[in-house]
Each structure stands twice: as structure tokens, then as C-alpha cells.
């Protein structure tokens, strides 16, 4: 739905922009903040990536990139039973020993550069997809999307996130734009839907730049990770995807994405728990 509204925006832009020129913009001052991208998956270990925000017009190269990675933070996760202290793997990534358990609450605590930040999440029970399959698009021979049937449990307020990975082609699971949705309109219903292939950030793979961009191909082996997340994490990712999608669109409201970490005005990012269901399919004609 967002996609539809968003798609006509470029039209208006083309229609209306008669004169575009580069300008120097003096942006208001920015406040350096810590950004925490943290998650814990069912049956997985916690993974926390801590960085700092960077001024919009700053110059970047690999040399000063390390200025924005936070490598000396003190990170703990409390699952109500134990407190696990995470170790730094390198490049701002931290991991620990806890394993994600369904229905458990986790509290993240980060002390970085003298300040303390915290947030909590829960791993909701996963909801399996009834079936998944590949279907080529009508006009294309070997390219298409992955389809699925979902039966949403009635009344419980599920929030979903979809990931997919092509074995042997993708390093990790990739969420396409629009990967998060909730059950407001589909509560208790069984229905089918499809997703296109997400693009890894900064991908320079040929099939992300040519006509195969966004499509799965026949003979791909595709793993689908269908997850459930809690409400606050859903609100974060929904805002995050809206921001990515409407980047540059003047008709969108510039909003701050609502983080589930505290103190709210001083930290960026999210701590999300995923309930996980995975299945694999081989795409056939």
C-alpha cells in the first residue's frame, strides 16, 4: 500500500521539477549520538552492532570510518535468569552466550563513552507459513517472486518480518523493502502474498543491477525466514522502511524513527527479538 502511494511520487517529481540545481546547504548542528543495532533470534546468539551517527555532509573514507565504530562499549543482556556480558568481535560487533528462547523477555544494557543506554524486547512465538513456492511472472520466462500462504492466528496482534536468502548467492538473509507488516487487516485470515527479492545494502552484484534486479530466478534454492517481532520493534522497522523508501520525497513527513531504546532523545537504533520459522524451496518453472 505504501508502495503504491510512494510510486506516484516520482511521477509528481518529474512532472513538477522544472529546475534542479546543486546548492550548498548549511544544516543545523547535529548532536553526536550512539546507534545500537541489536537483535536476538530464537535459537540464536545475540548480535549487537554499536556505531555513532555521522554528520550528514561529513567526508568518508575507510580511514576515518573507524571513528564511527564503537569498539569499547560494555554490553550486557539480561534474560531474567542470567546476565550475559557480550564480547567485542571487532568492528563494533558484540556477541554473547545466551540463546534466544521463545516468549522470554530480554533487556539490553550498553555503557558507551560514559553514558548508559537500555532497551528490552521479547521473542514472540513464531507463526509458520502454510506453504511457500516460486512463481514466474507472466511476461517473464524465468524470473519471478516467492509466494506464501499465511494463516494469521486470530486476535493476538502478530507483527511479522520476512527475510529470504538464495543459498550460494547471498551471504545472509535479506529483508526486501516492506518486509514488516502486522495483522490489522488480515487478523485471523488465510491469504496469499508474494515478496520480491531484497537488495543487500551497497550490492554491486550484476544481478542486482541488471534486469534481474528484484527477482528470483528459476533453479535458485531459496531459504525463507519468516519471523515474528514485538510491537515496539515493529513500529521501529515500519518507520525505518518508510524512511528508506521515501528518502528524498518532499511530500513525506520527515520523522524521527521511534526507537525502542532509552533515553529516547539520546540514542538511535533498535533491540529486536525474532521468533523464527525457516523453510527452503527450489524455484521451478
Amino acid at each position, binding site marked *: 500500500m505504501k508502495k503504491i502511494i510512494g510510486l506516484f511520487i516520482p511521477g509528481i517529481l518529474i*512532472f513538477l521539477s522544472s529546475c534542479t540545481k546543486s546548492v550548498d546547504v548549511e544544516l543545523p548542528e547535529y548532536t553526536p549520538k550512539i546507534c545500537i543495532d541489536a537483535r536476538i533470534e530464537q535459537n540464536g546468539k545475540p548480535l549487537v552492532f554499536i556505531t555513532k551517527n555521522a554528520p550528514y555532509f561529513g567526508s568518508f573514507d575507510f580511514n576515518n570510518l573507524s571513528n564511527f565504530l564503537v569498539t569499547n562499549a560494555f554490553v550486557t543482556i539480561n534474560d531474567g535468569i542470567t546476565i550475559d556480558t557480550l564480547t567485542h568481535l571487532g568492528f563494533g560487533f558484540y556477541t554473547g552466550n545466551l540463546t534466544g528462547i521463545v516468549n522470554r523477555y530480554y533487556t539490553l544494557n550498553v555503557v558507551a563513552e560514559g553514558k548508559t543506554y537500555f532497551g528490552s524486547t521479547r521473542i514472540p512465538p513464531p507463526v509458520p507459513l502454510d506453504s511457500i513456492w516460486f512463481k514466474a511472472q507472466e511476461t517473464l520466462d524465468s524470473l519471478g517472486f516467492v509466494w506464501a500462504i499465511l494463516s494469521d492466528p486470530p486476535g493476538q496482534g502478530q507483527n511479522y518480518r520476512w527475510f529470504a536468502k538464495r543459498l550460494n548467492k547471498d551471504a545472509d538473509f535479506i529483508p526486501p523493502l516492506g518486509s514488516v507488516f502486522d495483522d490489522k*487487516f488480515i487478523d485471523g485470515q488465510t491469504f496469499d502474498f508474494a515478496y520480491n527479492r531484497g537488495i543487500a545494502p551497497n550490492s554491486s552484484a550484476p544481478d542486482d543491477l541488471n534486469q534481474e534486479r528484484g527477482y528470483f530466478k528459476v533453479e535458485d534454492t531459496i531459504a525463507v525466514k519468516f519471523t515474528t517481532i514485538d510491537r515496539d520493534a515493529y513500529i521501529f522497522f515500519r518507520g525505518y522502511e518508510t524512511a528508506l523508501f521515501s528518502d528524498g520525497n518532499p511530500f*513525506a513527513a520527515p520523522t524521527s524513527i521511534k526507537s525502542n531504546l532509552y533515553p529516547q532523545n539520546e540514542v538511535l537504533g533498535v533491540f529486536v527479538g525474532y521468533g523464527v520459522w525457516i523453510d527452503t524451496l527450489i524455484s521451478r518453472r
Partner: protein
Amino acid sequence: MVRTISCFLGLFFSLSLWGQEKKPDAKKFTISGYIKEESSGEALLGANVYVLEIKKGVIANQYGFYSITLDEGNYTLLISFIGYEDRNIPIKLDKDIRLNLSLKDAAIVGGEVEIVGEKVDQNVKGTEMGTFNIQVEQIKTLPAFMGEVDILKTIQLLPGIQSAGDGNAGFYVRGGGPDQNLILLDEAVVYNASHLFGFFSVFNGDAVKDVNLIKGSMPAQYGGRLSSVLDISMKEGNNKKYIMEGGIGNVASRFTVQGPIKVDTSSFIISGRRTYIDVLAKPFFKKDSPFSGTRYYFYDLNTKLNYRISDKDRLFLSGYFGRDIFVFNDKNLGFKTEIPWGNSTGSLRWNHLFNDKLFMNTSLIFSNYTFELRATQSQFEFRLFSGIRDFNGKVDLTYFPNPNHKINFGSNYIFHTFTPTNATARSGEVEFNLGDVVKLYAHDAAIYVSDDWEVTDLIKINAGIRYSNFTQVGPFKRYIKDQQGKIMDSVEYRRGEKVINYGGPEPRISMRWILTENSSFKAGYTRNLQYIHLASLSSVSLPTDVWMPSTELIKPQIGNQYAVGYFRNFRKDMFETSLEVYYKDMKNQVEYKEGAQPEDNVKDNPDNSFTFGNGWSYGAELFLKKRYGKFHGWIGYTLSWTYREFPEINFGKEFPAKYDRRHDVSVVTSYDYNKKWTFSVVWVYATGNAATLPVAFYLIEGNMVSEFGERNSYRFKPYHRLDVSATLYPDHVKKENRKKRRLEKRYTKKGKTLTEEIWFQKKKVMETSWNFSVFNAYNRYNPYFIYFETSGSIYEGNLQIGAKQVSLFPILPSVTWNFKF
């Protein structure tokens, strides 16, 4: 405190009236009647009837009716109205007299005409502050944007009225939002007065007779909005002869027909306008472009009928219908969207004279605004729609007991039906359950009384009180939510059952104190309640903006405005100057919550998406006008601040409103070079709009996400622009007419007369004029919005972010040919 003021005003009233009645017994008689324009029979609202002997006058109401009650005797009446020739009429008053008068257009008799005027020396003498009257015929000489003369664009050249910038619908008055302006067309509310994001207004200049703008002390007969009233009257239609006029421009054309159905008794006017699809779309789309089929066009139609039943009764029927349609086609994606939106209004009005002193107008009005978006992509179809519909009945009476008082009183009732954004969607055969279509209903009523009271020769007071009441009624379903935001339960209200009720008094008072013959001091206080709200999702006003009623969650907006002003005329009223200073506070302002999405409205109460706060604005407006002479025009300068404070926005810190505009300058000049040519130059300057821009970015899942700075903490570069125009009135005199003119000279007293006046002529002469305009003459790239383009990437270590500014209008010349016959 408000109650105290209202009680005080009530007491004030009764004392003043009573005081006046206690005079020694003298026989009193009333002179009353209608004042019209001679050539067309159109009523002249606001004409001045002044009695020389007692140095008092009265102003005709919006139907041209006046009434003045005096002791028996001999008097001289001076009738005047801006742009028309004055008349002196000696009266022997020994019985009640019905005196209908007509005034001649001053242009015909060689007088100069103002563009924006007030009644003769009304600048100093009137109690209203911040009231402007706009002469529609004269704004046709101002530079026209794309060839279209525009009322909304003209009022934005006045101090205190700010345009929202190129391409933004709406205008802002003294720091108030675009929903705080009451826009009336023949008493029907127009909810979206703009075509295409504010490029053009919905008002066709050929169909409009009079435009009154009130930004200061709003009199008690108006209500429902905090900031201003734009009261537009349509022409009634020439009831003496047929006239056809129109114009062909490079972007739009218009055509108007008016004339009598029965001479001097009834008449009609029909006026239409349309843009050309091609002109707007073609430069942007080549034939083989995947975007071909994309187009935009608008049209509007104004119609009016009027019938003079008798000397005491008149009937008027007017209607407006307008549409904008935008179609976007992307064949590559198999995607098409169609977006129609527009207003339709209708009003039936009955003027009735009970007696010489009591005038009544009763109106039945219908107003409707709808917006729709239909999008299809292969098998997926989506439809979004919203709107507002009003059924309105009102009664307004004017009572002229004696020359010191003019009392207005009346009542107004509106039944609103709101359709906040509703959506339907289907994918192939599957219909998505987006909930039932939600409509909201409300009763909106008010009663008022006000008096224009000449307390002494120096002091005049306009005091009024309005009492308004608003009730939201069912059918309505209120969802009860838990802390997670999930819907637990709902409360259902039956049809007509009260959901919530609001109301309160709105005192209005303004005072004028004459200091010297040509200067005065004015002060005013008004309190306004506004029960309906326009919520805008984006930083740019769009037709998607949705009207909402006050509900259990949305309280009525409350505005208090305090203003003082000093008015001074120079050189026998040739120069008018004024300085007005105001302070306004606004409570219960509405904004969308941060992170709100359009789909939140679906299957939920839309008012859950809003958050509330307060606003305040203050400023000073300086105005200098030269009214007469070959060279005339005005300069307006406004210095103002407007701020908002919302607990849930910007972390509760106060922030400037989007249209907080520190400096706003307008210079409008016209030069009547000779009988053929008039030149006009307009220059505007404004501090840039405020915007929220990204100040930093951060990484989530390897993607760069923009982090925005404090709300409205960035200022665009100042906006300024020069427009020039030249209007040519060629002589279109054919050989036959030369003979006619020789005949005229024998039959008329003044030198130049319209040839149509000679009834024995068979051939009509067509009047034409050419308007050549250049909009944005020095081609300044005024910012419309700024976006950022990234190149390279963090991972490759060569990330570059550049800012790009998009401007809407480069230099735009246009030519319009106007005709009238």
C-alpha cells in the same frame, strides 16, 4: 473571564440602545433602499450613504441595502463607493422614503480607480482593522501568473497575509494555519480554494464581484475559524443587457455569459474556465515516453440566477462546481493512478425587507469537497477517498434603528458529514478488509448579535457576541484500545446520539477613536472557536489533507487576538498609511503524531493519529498606499513570529511553525501610461520557510538512515520575485461607430461614454485587452524543496552527499487576450 466579558457586553448593548431612545419627541422618518451599479444593476455592497447635515452615515450591507432614520427635515445625501462617481441627493424628509439609487462607474467618467480599496476614508473612519476590499475588475491589470488573474494571489500581496510559497495551497494569516481561514463564495464555504497545489485559486475573476478580506477584528456574524474571513460575492448578472466576455491565455481559457432574463427584474450569469492538458504536460513527456498519458487539468463553473420578486423580496440561486484531475501513467511498471478532487457549492438566498429598518437574508447552502485517489498495478487496485459535506441554513438580520446604531443579529446551523481517509483495496478477486467506510457527523450552530455604535463623533465601537455550539453525533464507533494499541472493545453510538458537545461564547469588540481629521487609533479583541480541523500529513499542503470534526479526543481550537493600530491619511486621502500590531494565542492546535502513516486511519478512529499543542504569534504590519494618480499602488511590510509547542513533537520543545516568516515585503505599483497602456510591477520578498532536514545519518542493517534535526530548524533561502505586466486596451472602433460617436457627443454630457449605452445601435462593439506578463522576471530559483543525493558508498570509502534544490518556476512569460461584448 470570557463570561465576564460577555455579560459586560450584553449590559453595554442594552444601555447604549436605551440611552439613544430617550430623546425629545420629534417625528422620525426612514430613507431606505438599494444601491446598484448603473450599467449592470449589480448591488453595490458597502456603498456609503452619508448625511451631510448630521455628519453621520451608514454603509449598505452585502446586498446593497441601506436604511437611515432621521428627524423630519431637509437633508443632503452623499452616496459614494470606491471606483464610482459620487452623487449628491437633496431630500425633503416628511414621510418614509424608498430611495433606490445607482452609481456610475468612475472609469467611464475619467476618474482613477484603486485596486485594493476601502470606502472613502474608511481607513481612518471605520472601526474594522485589517479589512481589505478588493476590486476584482482592477486586479486584471496586475501581473498575471500564467495569464490567470488570481484573487488569492492578490490578497497575498497584503501585509499579514502570507502565501505558502510557490506550489503550496492555502495562505496564512497572522501566523494561523491554512485551515483557520473561512473562505466563502456567496455564503457557501469553500474547503479547498486551490487548483493544483495553489498555482491557481478556484475563483474565476470574471464571475466575482466583490472580495472582502478580514484578518483583524472578525465581526460576530462570522465564526468557525480562528484567523480570517475571505468573503467573496459572485456577480448577479447584468440585468440590463447581455454581455459575453472571456479570455484566452497560454495556459487556461475562460468564458462568461451574463444577462437579463427579464430586464431590471431577473438576470443570470454563467462562467466557465479550463486549462489545457497539452500545454502543461507536453513539455515534460515525449510521445514514446513510458509516462505518456500523464496529464493534469482543471475546470470550474460558476452559475447564478437572481430574481427580484418585489420591492421587498429578492431571490438568488448560485452554484459552483470545480474539479482538478491528475493522471499518472507508468507503462513500464504497469502502474496507473488517477486523482480527482474538487468542490461543489450551491446557495439559495432570500432577501426580505420587513420594513424600512429591518432587513433579513435567509440562506440555504450546500457545500461539498471530495478527494479521491485510484491506483492500479496489474491486478492490485487501491482506492483512497476523503471529503466533507455541509448542509447549512442561516438567517441574518440587519436593523437600522437610528444613524448611531446598526445592529446585526442572526443564527447559523450546519450539519457536517466528514469522510476522513477511507480506503478500499483488492488484489484480483480478494477484497482486503479495510473496515467499513467511516463517516463522522456533527451539528454546528451559532447565534450572534452585534452593534456598530457611534458613541460620540470621535468614538465608534463595534461590539458583538457570538455563541457557538458543536455536537458530534452518531452513527459512530469508538474503539477502546489497550496500552499496546490493540483494539479491545468498542462503543457504538446510534444515529443522532450525542457523542460529545462543545460550545462557548465568542466576544468580539473593536473600537475606533478619531484623533484628528485624518488620523485615528483603533483597538480590538476577538475570541474565536474553531470546531473543524485540517490535518496535513506532509510538509507540503496537498489535496490529501483531511478535514476532521472536534471529537472526544480533539478539542475545539481557541484563539484570542489582541490588536491595536494607528491609521493616518495624507494629502486629502491620497496616501493611506497604517501600522497594526497584534498578538494572538491559539490553543488545541492539531498535528499528526510523529511516525503516523495513512493506513493508521483504517479500521481505527482517525483521531488517534493526532497530537495537540498550543501556538502563539505576534507581529507588526506596516502599510503605505497611494490611492490616486497615474502612478499608484502600495507597499506592505510585515514583521512577525509564530511558534508552536506540542508535548509529543520535538520532545516538547517549542519550535517555529513552518510558515514562521520573519520579514514579508510586497511592493505593488501600477502606472497608467495613457488610455491604451497600463504597466504594473510587483515585487515580493519573504524570509524562507522553515523545514526539518536531516542533520546526520546512522547505520541500521548496513543501510544508511537519515536522522532529522529539530523540528523546523532549517530555513530556506529568502524568497523573492519580480513580476511585470503591461496591459493594452486597443481602440476597436469600426467605421460605423465613428458616426455613432458623433451622435453620442450630442446626447451625452461627459466626453467618453460606452457605446453600448446608445440603445439604437445595432452593432455591438467588442472591447478587448491584451495582458503581457512576465512572472519571476529576473529568473530567481526560489527553493521549493531540497533533497539529498548520495553517490559512492561508505564501504568503498568514497561517500558523497550533495544537496539539490528544486525550484518550481523559472521566468514565465504569458499572454492573455481578454474580450467583452
